[in-house]
Each structure stands twice: as C-alpha cells, then as structure tokens.
C-alpha cells in the first residue's frame, strides 16, 4: 500500500497503481491494522463495533467484518496471513458434516455449469452457506477456476471476495512457480539434458490455456533415467537442495536401489520444490519410455515461456492415472481429465489403449461434468463402465476430502493396491518385484545408508522398516481401543 488518506471517516488508498475509495467501515478496519502488524479478526471486529455499534440482527459483527476484510484482501489492501486471519481454515473446520457435503455438492454443480458452457448464471442454492462453498473450492483445489468465472456464478459477496482474494494469492504463487520452472528448464537444457515438465503450471497451461488456473504446488519434471545424476547436480547448482528422505547421487547401494525401484525424488528450493522424475508414476510399463515421450512432446507457453511437456494424449493418460491413484478424491483432478478428454486434439495422438483405471477416471469425469460434444466412442464406453457403487464411494470420499494428501495408515496397503492394478503379463512380474522391493525397503530408510554394498545396507533397512510396521500397527490397535 503506497498511501492511505483519511478524511471525514472515509478514505482512499493507493495499492500498486490503483486508487480505491473506502467506506467508513473499511476505513475503520484499515485503521485497526497498522502497517506491518498482524491483527486477529476478533480484534478488528471489536474495533469496528466500538466505532459503529453492533449491527442489526440477523447480521453478526464478525461475519460483516469478515466480508469487508475479504473485500480489502481481494483488492490487495490487506493481506490475510497464516493462522491469525485464516478465515477459511477455521470456519471450514467449524462446518458440520452436512454443511460440508452440501458445499461440495454445490461445487460440483457449479463446475458442471462452467464445463457445459451453457448460457445463463449459476445460482448458489439458498440452503448452502457461502463458507461451505468456499471451503469446498479450497478443499478441491479449484479456487482459481471458480474465481476466474465469477461472472457466470451468482454468489454472495462474501464468497466472491474470499475466492478472489485466495485466487489472487494462488495465482501469485503460480507466477513464482512459472519463473522457477523457466530456471529449471533452462539449466537442464544448457547441460543438454532433455526435460519434460508436467502437472502443475505446465498442465494448467496445456489444458486450460492459463498457467495459473490450477494454483501453485511443486514443479514436476521428467528426465531420462540415465541423466538423473547429472540433472540432480544441475539442480543443486541452480539452488535446489536434496530433500530429507531421499538418497543422493553417488556410489551407495541406497542410490542404486532408489533409481531401480523409485520414480522420483524431491529437491527443495527457496521458493519452490522440484520433483525430479525418471519414470512417470504410477507404475513402470504404463507409459512409453522417455525417448518416445520426448519424440511426441508438445510445447506450451507458461507465462510466456515455451516449455516442453507431454503430448496431450500422454497428459490425459497421466492425469487420469494420477486421479485414480488419489481415488478421485479431488474434483480438480477430474476437472483436468474432463478438459483434456474434451479436446479433440487429445485423441489424435492416441497410440495405445488406456488402462482400466485411466478409463475409470475418464468415465467418472464425464459422469460428473457432462459428455463432451464429438467425444470419441471410448469416452462413451468409459462412462458406461462407471459402477454406481464406485461413484457413490467416490462422492462420499470427495465430501470429506481436505486439501492435503493423507497417506494411508496401513503399512503395505499401497503395495497391495498397486499389485492389484498389474496385468497378468511377464513384464508385470518384474514390476511386482520392483513394487515389493520398494515397499520393503522404502527410500526414507535408505537415506543414511552410504555403503555401496547391499549385503551391508539391506539388513539395517529391513530392521528399521520392521520397527516402523510394528509401531504403526500398535498405534492402530491403541486408537481402536480408545474408541
């Protein structure tokens, strides 16, 4: 905020190059938050009530103040930070289960309206509170998508302001991410390491034409397996350091094991994390090798910079597999699949059948958001394969989902699930061995094993893994008794 001028209880502020007139209440709120300070909503509300008196019923002073605060945040006059003013987190936590469920149902309906492209404005049902919808949008990672289409949605002002403010922050994060992606891409290209960016801002640019529409997260890049060591070094030089829980390149058994059984590792930077992949998850053999993916690559513009990425069909295959791995709990994943599947260009590059779980994702996406016009027969088939029982379970899981990924608490359950997904083919035997090795000897236990010899490192790792399994099983027993 460059300047703030107050006269006769009203004021005007300059933010960046914009000048905004403020009402008496907004002026009072701003005066309650001195420059550089952090103030709770309660303190701000008390100040407003002292100045203007309590509001008329049925409005609550806190709700009215919150609405004004979100308006100010949407215009970048105030910054909503951490726990001090984390309205959405706290209020979302106060929502009853039914309120949360209604919010998610309303969100699905809103997204369906937006995807259908029909004329007219979607109206939030009266029984759904603005907090419920905002909480749902946040939980399902679609805040920027909703905020970008407020002109097609009739929402209470509180919800619109809150979504706009949150979207503004997420888009700013995406812009930083995009800048870091350019650094990563250029650094690897300078060392002649071919790299394909995917997910995140890259997928947003590819599917939606707007690199910031999916918000911010990590940077995911894929390099050839034989270049992982070099790529790791290049990223270190560029400012990203190895994250805990992953071995570092070298001659250790741990590093060899991770390359053979794993798919990715994480490097931490000052503003972003890079997930460096050498195979596309969820499993080996589900995708062509890097050379084939590279030959089919496409170039997308991420904040004006050309970035190589997967072909549209490969992106659809990856996104739908990823959505399945996450049990379709986030609407954004299904939205990604729907957008990609709706583009006729995606299907021009279809060179292999989609796997069953990928087809399920497509089927669930079109069930949710509508059948695209001119969809190829495979999309219709995918929709027919959606079992009503599965859909009910998916909806139930979506109702209760949170923004963060929650790892399954039963040791080995991921191994079992992924084993079930294997086709009964000879190559699956090798994949099953890899999965077993990864499950028994996860990388988080191998990080400190520097020995180049398996015979030295493996027994120690197995011991630590066994201890963890016992501990987690014991915790589950204890929590069951406590209930």
């Amino acid at each position, binding site marked *: 905020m460059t300047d703030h*001028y107050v006269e*006769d209880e009203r004021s*005007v502020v300059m933010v960046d190059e914009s000048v905004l007139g403020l009402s008496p209440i907004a002026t009072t709120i701003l005066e309650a938050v001195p420059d550089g300070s952090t103030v709770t909503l309660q303190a701000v509300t008390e100040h407003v009530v002292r100045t203007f008196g309590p509001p008329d019923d049925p409005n609550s002073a806190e709700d009215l103040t919150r609405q004004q605060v979100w308006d100010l945040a949407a215009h970048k006059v105030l910054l909503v930070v951490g726990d001090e003013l984390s309205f959405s987190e706290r209020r979302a936590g106060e929502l009853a289960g039914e309120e949360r469920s209604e919010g998610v149902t309303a969100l699905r309906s809103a997204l369906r309206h937006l995807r259908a492209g029909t004329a007219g404005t979607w109206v939030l049902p009266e029984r759904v509170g603005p907090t419920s919808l905002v909480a749902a949008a946040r939980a399902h990672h679609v805040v920027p998508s909703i905020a970008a289409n407020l002109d097609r949605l009739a929402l209470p002002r509180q919800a619109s302001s809150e979504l706009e403010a949150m979207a503004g922050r997420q888009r700013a994060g995406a812009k930083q991410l995009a800048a870091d992606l350019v650094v990563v891409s250029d650094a690897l290209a300078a060392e002649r390491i071919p790299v394909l960016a995917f997910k995140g801002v890259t997928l947003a640019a590819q599917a939606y034409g707007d690199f910031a529409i999916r918000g911010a997260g990590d940077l995911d890049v894929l390099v050839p397996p034989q270049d992982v060591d070099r790529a790791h070094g290049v990223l270190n030089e560029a400012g990203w350091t190895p994250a805990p829980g992953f071995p570092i390149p070298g001659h250790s058994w741990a590093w060899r094991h991770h390359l053979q059984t794993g798919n990715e590792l994480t490097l931490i930077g000052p503003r972003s994390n890079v997930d460096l992949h050498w195979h596309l998850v969820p499993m080996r053999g589900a995708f062509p090798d890097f050379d084939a993916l590279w030959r089919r690559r496409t170039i997308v513009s991420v904040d004006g910079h050309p970035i190589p990425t997967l072909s549209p069909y490969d992106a659809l295959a990856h996104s739908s597999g990823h959505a399945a791995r996450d049990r379709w709990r986030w609407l954004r994943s299904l939205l990604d699949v729907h957008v990609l599947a709706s583009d006729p260009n995606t299907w021009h590059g279809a060179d292999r059948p989609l796997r069953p779980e990928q087809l399920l994702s497509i089927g669930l996406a079109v069930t949710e958001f509508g059948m695209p016009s001119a969809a190829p027969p495979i999309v219709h088939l995918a929709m027919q394969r959606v079992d009503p029982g599965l859909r009910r379970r998916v909806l139930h899981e979506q109702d209760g989902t949170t923004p963060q990924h929650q790892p399954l608490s039963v040791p080995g359950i991921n191994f079992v699930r992924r084993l079930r997904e294997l086709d009964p083919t000879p190559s699956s035997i090798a994949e099953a061995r890899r999965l077993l090795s990864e499950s028994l000897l996860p990388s988080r236990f191998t990080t400190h094993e520097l020995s180049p010899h398996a015979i030295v490192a493996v027994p120690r790792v197995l011991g630590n893994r066994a201890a963890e399994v016992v501990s987690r099983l014991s915790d589950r027993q204890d929590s069951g008794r406590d209930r």
Partner: protein
Amino acid sequence: MPSTEEQADVVAHVSAFGVVVPIRTSHALRGPVLEAWRDALTDDEPTTDAVQAAGTDVENALHHLSPAVTTAAIDARAGQLVMLHAAALADTETGRTAVLVAASGTGKTTASLTLGKTFAYLTDETAAITRDGVVLQYRKPLSIIDGSHVKKQIAPSALGLRSTDLDGRLAALLMIERDPGHEGEPQVEKLDTVDAIAAIAPQSSYLPSMDKPLHRLAELVHLVGGARRVRYAESADLAAVLTRLLAVPS
C-alpha cells in the same frame, strides 16, 4: 555526402513545465517544427536528451513529435510535480488558473480552443502543479483535425489563444465531463476530498513515484477549497463557470 543522422540537427529548445527539451530534425522539417512550437520556444539549455521529429511527411512527423516531447518532460519531472491529464487556463489579469481534468479524447483540446480566447492558454495536455500550487506552462501546439486522418499541430498563438506572463496559480480543480445531451447550464458538483482524489488519480502521471501521493492530491484539493465535477454540453458553456471560480475571493 552527409549521412541521414548528420542531417538531423537540434533546431529548437522547447519548454514544458520547467523542462527544456531539444528537438532534433531534418532541414526539411525545421520550419514546420519551429512554427508549430513557436509559443514554447526557449533559449535555455536543454535538461533532457533530444527528441526526434522524423520522416518526410510533415503532419505525421509533427503528430508524433508532440507526445514525444510530453513524455520526455513527464519522465524528467516524475516524483517532483503532480502531473495531470488536463487543460489549464488562467485569468490573464491575476494568473488564477483552472485545471480541467479529463481522459484523453474527451474534450480538453476543444475546451482549450474555446476558452483560450478569453483565458490564457497554459496547456491542453498536461497540467504540472508544484507543491504550493503553481501551474507550470506547457504551451504546446494543439492537435486540430481538418478533415484528414492526421491531426495538424497548430501553435496556440496561431489560433488566437491568449497568453500570460504571470505565474499560473491553482484556483480551481475541475473534473470535466462533456455530455452532448446535457441541457441548460453546466452542472457543477462539489466533490468530497476522498472522491476527488479517486477521480483525479487515474488521470495523473507517475503518481506512485511521489512520496505520499494521495496526500499531495489532497493538499491541492484543499488549496482550491475543493474539487468539482462539471457536466456540460458545449465548451463555451464553461466560460461562465471559470469566470466565477477564478474570481478573486472577496
């Protein structure tokens, strides 16, 4: 044979709200430049780099020269002066000045053409105001459409517009809005300071580069006893408004 660059010489120094901008041009354009800018010429030494009037088409060259001079002057005074997209006209006897703020293409030049026959023409483009309310002159040529697609640049004195040697002293700050459908006398509405600032700010240059820019605008608003929004049909209707507002307070 001399190169094209060597043929372009500095042919004039023009004064724009205290900035002296040298104009470089070819021999062929020298005469037209001097004629169009004759009311802004100065012997003072330049305070910016030269701007170029280039090309062989006179009207086109002069058409592009005006914004180039304006930009050079605004850049030079960024952070120092309040610079508004505005016409400025002064009482020839007292120097009391009305600044007429309006967006591009909405009537500043037309108002200057009409009112400049009665009041002293200080500028039709950028009103630059010091902290203590002095409105600095910028007697640039006015852009007049004579039927061709390119505007002609005509010196104010060639249009019969009046001048003054007095310092312009800010006495009225008007947001002008031309409405051809408006009937009767101009509608003059006094604005609250906050509303005036919000209305004026979008029509300013380099405001964020000033220290406490909104406070600076507030000072100017208070200096003139409040800014006003004026809705009118024809520029000539504004004469009476200016006469009233620029009258010396009794």
